[in-house]
């Protein structure tokens, strides 16, 4: 059975997709093209002159062990943010799905943090964990733990991960909850009658039926962790201590917009573009196969 609608001419379909094509061209292809072009030069900050260096910017970056180390940092950061934000969201969604009384209030409260901008979230968390006046670091001090994310690399990483994941939990929660509620109750009830416990039902029925949502969230969260977290990093650690929280996109930002090294910044954007392209291909080629629609 052919499900697709077939158009007779070519012009109507083109016209219909034109708005999307224009948006993609103006907001993606044009700037991406410019980034690729700029990555071949070392420009001065004021745009007065440009020196052609070919692949010099890439050579400079890839021969820098600190830049290469930031790939590992980025991978770790992205995995942690994705796992934490999706794991907690799923847990909360499962609980909220079972809740009958007052569920509306809980859901609204859980969705709230999504409205907080990343940079503001960063400041909030920084304030709680401030080594001098932070509430949480003070309690940790009472327990005998000396919190110092200013010098301790693991603590700094933990803090930026929590701050980045926090707002994301709401977003993921919303999708997981919708996904859970779309699972027919009859299937679950039938399994329950057959004697399947909660965990068995979750593993064999809920999880597979939820997989389209999970896959969507995986893609979206990885992209988030890669691109939208520099506000948090900027406000909390500034990439430090040493380079413990310098993720790729933060380096793009700080080299380009703080240090005026636009050539290197453009080259880094291109590298990032390639990585995310590859990641997306991998996700759709390999992970999507396990998704049941």
């Amino acid at each position, binding site marked *: 059975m052919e499900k697709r609608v077939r158009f007779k001419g070519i012009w109507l379909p083109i016209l219909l997709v034109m708005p999307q094509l224009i948006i993609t061209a103006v907001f993606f292809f044009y700037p991406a093209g410019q980034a690729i072009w700029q990555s071949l030069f070392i420009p001065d900050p004021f745009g007065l002159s440009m020196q052609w260096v070919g692949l010099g910017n890439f050579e400079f970056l890839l021969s*820098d062990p600190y830049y290469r180390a930031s790939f590992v940092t980025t991978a770790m950061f992205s995995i942690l943010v994705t796992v934490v934000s999706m794991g907690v969201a799923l847990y909360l969604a499962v609980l909220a799905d079972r809740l009958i009384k007052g569920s509306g209030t809980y859901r609204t409260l859980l969705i709230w943090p999504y409205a907080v901008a990343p940079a503001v979230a960063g400041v909030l968390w920084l304030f709680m964990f401030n*080594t001098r006046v932070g509430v949480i670091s003070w309690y940790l001090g009472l327990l005998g733990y000396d919190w110092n994310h*200013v010098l301790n690399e693991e603590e700094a990483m933990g803090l930026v991960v929590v701050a980045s994941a926090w707002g994301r939990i709401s977003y993921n929660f919303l999708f997981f909850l919708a996904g859970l509620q779309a699972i027919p109750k009859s299937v679950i009830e039938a399994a329950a009658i057959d004697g399947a416990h909660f965990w068995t039902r979750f593993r064999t029925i809920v999880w597979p039926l939820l997989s389209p949502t999970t896959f969507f969230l995986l893609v979206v969260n990885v992209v988030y962790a890669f691109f939208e977290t520099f506000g948090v990093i900027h406000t909390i650690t500034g990439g*430090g201590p040493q380079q413990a929280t310098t993720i790729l996109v933060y380096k793009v930002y700080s080299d380009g917009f703080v240090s005026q090294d636009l050539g290197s910044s453009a080259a880094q954007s291109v590298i990032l573009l390639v990585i995310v392209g590859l990641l997306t291909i991998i996700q759709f080629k390999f992970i999507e196969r396990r998704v049941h629609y």
Partner: protein
Amino acid sequence: MKLSTPLFAGSLATLIAAPAVAQTEVEFWHAFTGRLGELVAEQVETFNGQQDDYIVVASHKGNYSETLNSGIAAFRAGEQPHILMVFEVGTATMMSAQGAIKPVYEVMQMGGAEFDQEKYIGAVKGYYTTSDGDMLSLPFNSSTPVLWVNRDKFAEAGLDPDMDLSTWEQVGDTLTQLKDAGVDCPMTTAWQSWIHLENFSAYHDTPFATKANGFGGRDTELAFNSDAQVAHISAMGEWAQDGKFIYAGRRNEGGANFRGGECAMFTESSAGYAGIKAEADFAFDVRPLPYWEAVASEPQNTIIGGASLWVMEGHEDEDYAGVASFLNFLSSPEIQAKWHQDTGYLPITLEAGDLTREQGFYEENPGTDIAVKQMTTNEPTDNSKGLRLGSFDQIRGIIDEELEAVWAGDKEAQAALDSAVERGNQLLRRFEQSAN
């Protein structure tokens, strides 16, 4: 075109008179908020009230980096202000931007105002002049690092608050005594690279970079991994390991610890004065920055930090007359003396310093002249005139990272400084390439 003479003369007169009727606007972008922002607004108001030809419009554009970025972005869009405040780290970037900036000495000449470069303090002016001695930007807020002492903390620990702390050897012993007496934070610092490497080098007359710290050309290379600097950073690293030196962050985070009364000593800019005076509920003291007796028999001079005002290219000639008039106003002894006394920034002219002395400010506020003395006692050498390095903001970032490795005990001082020099040199070569 036929014009009767009287009519022509009349219209010419209107043209000439026009600026007096419709005031010429001078845009001034700065990076100050809080108390400093209020003081800048006050200066601008005074200027606008004093004369009718020009009106200065001051806008706050974020912190130093953000202000510089706004200026650069505006220039690219053809919307640049007349005057842009740029921190000292951005000096080399601005200097190489020929076509984007208008040197201050030229602007002053265009304004017809008499411009005597001699009246500016050498150590301040030197940072912003060419090798030919021409001033490219007007120093606005300049400070230099000093040692702040919490006298009460010393007394609590059973130490004499008046003890001599002029050398790091003495400070080192004192740190041990403070620690043994149970002080949790014997010492902290702000701006580690600026104070403990850049100023340290100048103060001990040791090069921070070759080619007279970059004044002699863009092919300069970093040199702050020599024995003197390594010894200092290594000592600081040991103090950090022993909990005698508490690291609070890359910028001036340590200020909160000191002002809150937790730390006994604090190396920070002389401009920390306004904040410390306002917040500290303990007796404090300003001391000269310590030096290592083992390295130098007596200290050279420290260098400045802070910002200067750059005039941007691309405006009308009559606008520049207004800019010149405003810059002259800012350099006047009365305005400068008040600024110096309110903020702890250095006076930029000798006259302003003299006026402050005549007004009896130094006697009423002991220690406030230490920064001035520290900078002006000795004639600056090639190593202590200042720094002129491209991509310096990024280089400072690298230095911060490497120093953090030392404070955390992950690296030896020598290895960390070697690595900082190597990484920084790569950036200098890129800058050299971009500015060709």
